[in-house]
């Protein structure tokens, strides 16, 4: 199998915006100030017409993301997945990841490589 067979699943419904993925990636890849392998984007907070709130974080792997290829080869999860505090990130083959989608609303699968 090659790294191209793997994707990154994020159940952004429960992403808390805790920055763990961002800093884990930065440290693993020794990225300098201002550079990121993943960025946590934010929509809201915005009050909707029914009085409830839109407040969503969406982590976005950048072009520097290499899916932690070295770690994966050693048999480790990508560091963002390993450390994600809300445990909303998964790393696996597309087949395995796709199986979860029917029970996991507000989820994306990124094809990175």
């Amino acid at each position, binding site marked *: 199998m090659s790294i191209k067979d793997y994707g990154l699943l994020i159940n952004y419904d*429960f992403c808390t915006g805790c920055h*763990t993925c961002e800093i884990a990636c930065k440290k693993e890849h020794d990225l300098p*100030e201002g550079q990121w392998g993943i960025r946590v984007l934010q929509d*809201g907070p915005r009050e909707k017409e029914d009085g409830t709130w839109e407040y969503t974080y969406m982590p976005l792997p950048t072009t520097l993301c290499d899916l932690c290829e070295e770690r994966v080869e050693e048999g480790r999860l990508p560091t963002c997945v390993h*450390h994600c*505090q*809300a445990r909303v990130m998964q790393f696996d083959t597309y087949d395995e990841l796709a199986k979860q989608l029917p029970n996991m609303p507000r989820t994306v699968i990124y094809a990175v490589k």
Partner: protein
Amino acid sequence: MAFKENPDLYRKDWRWQEGDLTVTRTCHWSAPGCHDSCGVLLYTDKDDNLVKIEGDPNQTYNNGTLCMRCLNMLEAVNHPERLKYPMKRAGERGEDKWERISWEEALDIIEENVRRIQKEYGPESIVGMMGTGRNCNWAVPLITYAGFGSPNFALGFLSGDSCMLPRAAISAAVMGDLPIIDAAQFWPERYDHEGWKRPDYIFMVGNNPLKSNGDGFLGHWIVEMMKMGTKLIVSDPQLTWLAAKAEVWLQGRPGTDGALALAMIHVIIEEDLYDHEFVEKWTYGFDQLTECVKEWTPEKAEEITWIPADKIRKAARLFASGDPSSLQWGVAVDMNVGGIPQAHAWIAMNAICGNIEKPGGNLIARDAYGMVLSYPYGYDKYIPPEMQAKRIGLDFSPLHRFAAGAATAHGDSILQCIETDKPYPIKMIWFQSTNPIANMAGEAPRVYDAINKMDFVVVVDVFKTPTAVAFADLVLPAAMSCERNSIRGWWTPTRAITKVTSYYEAKSDEDIVVAVCSRLNPENFKPRTDIELLEEAVENGIDNPPFTYAELTKMVDSWPERPYAMHEKGLLRSDGEPGFNTPTGKIELYSLVLEALGDPALPYYEEPRESPISTPDLYEEYPLVLTTGHRSYEFFHSEHRQQPTMREFHPWPLVEMHPDTAKKYGVKDGDWVWIENTRGRCRQVVHETPTMDPRVLNAEHGWWFPEQDAAEPSLFGVFDSNINNLTNQCVTGATGYGAPYKSQLCKIYKCTEENSEVMPGKQVTELGGFKYDRIQYTDDAVHDNTNEEMLEGRKYVY
């Protein structure tokens, strides 16, 4: 083929070799710090340098996850500005001139000063202080008790002792123990534990657990339960991410949660939504409670709290409908003058809904195996009763004897004692892992003046802090978590903290205890190494820990058995009878202990002393309600400011306000503004956000700027952005607990060159501070109705 982790890389051993690296499986607990102790894998090279850290996936406490602060650990551990050697002051206080000395010389200086002060003034004239929830919870008390022979251990001038201590004290008084939310954290199999179920509703008040992780509770456990279907009810003056996800968000006026609590109880009783069986069997004083909440209609509470009455009703109905619901309360409960009665009200609400000791409700939390490694450690052994009687503030606040594992001398009374030399003078302060003028000391400029009166000041820390530069005669370098052998005993599991590296001459808190106490009290204090101290701590565990410290290191953690419904099984009281550890054996909605102490026995609401309601004239001049102390992911209180990566995420202190507020005062995102009230001012950077009520400001605490000048008047800019230039001392609840950190009044105006000529640092250190009358407790505030029998008759199971 599905991805499989290589199990060789994540073993359950305590230590293994991975190529050139040694992997040690252990736990982290300050410094640098938070209240938690997550499982970590520490990777060291052949020279014992820490080269990598990962979360331990086999530690079910955190399941391999880590927050920003542990992930940035290498930047902390290898920081060039860390304290490396003991130093003594070479110039005047505040000049930042130092001379490197040896540990032996440092101990000589300590011994000489301690003996002199003990002889001239008595041991009680020495005070030991620490910050919140660090892994020196027992080290600093032990140095104070066994080393100095003084009963005066306290937090670093935290007014009203308002961080967990009020909740701990009232919980001990009315239900015998502290209740915490059941996230299945008491069992290694966690959510698979037999009988555990997720709560239907979690009611959150006074904290954002995702960022604060307070009191041994990892906030993201809430998210795990949300995924399983738990719904939220959130009381918070700001819309947090959790509040946005809640069924009901109660956006109240800061400082008024006490009124909310009484109104919710009103609804629950009036609409007959309470658990009759539990009330009947396990509570005392339901009729009196019913009577006392009668007037507290949601409409009345709306006037006070600004929360619409229908939302209060909805919140109460949802909470009462849960089977079970659970209560996640936080430090904002403590941080107002009505902290004690408010906490009493939340306990009452939770009790009448029958959530106590139920799966997924709130469980009584005790330190595993009765190893209480916290504030009382060594108190009875080293401090004789005549000396205990001199503990500062006990006459003023008899409830301070009830805080069980969290009992301390009374912070505000220590300050007043320093200022007045009554009942006796204070001559020396030992600060370990606390940086009060940057962080926890309310009315920081006043505390600056007080500490400067000391004959002798020692600061033990990992960095040279503003507190060290301003006052220290002696600075001692402390080790970080990976550089120490220690134990995490707070709640469950008991965890080993294992030393894997060292840093110049930094010593662990345990080594410092041994060095200081065996020098000052060699006959009575026996341990001579950190390991002997830790073995003794294990032996002192009341419930016979099934390990030695050496064994624990290899086990990594140990989980005691913990059944549900402990009160039914006779596991809470020293007499072995069923019931809670209170005079009646029940949860006291009407508290006999408070009654005996001369305090109101029922919950009540106390309006902040400065507020739109209590001081309308002042409110005209200072038209914004100010709250402070909320957390961020990057920092733990005043720590982490010297780490470049943390400052990349969070460069400046932010004051959050609604866009309408910013517009009204002619400021915008990114502007520096002065925040000012009658006591002083500080400046922070505007952050506009619709999450705030336009009448409320939310300012950050704990800021200093390690990149700025150390020497006075700057002191790393510690006073310039210090929100504690605006807070109080000696304005507390009648019990001495609870201070209004979270509810002040203020005004704002944009910073200009003209109005910034005299910065707060200069004002405080050179111009005698801001000019106003400092509030003092009066003599008639002292309680005279102390029921000695009630106080002495109380027995703790621990």
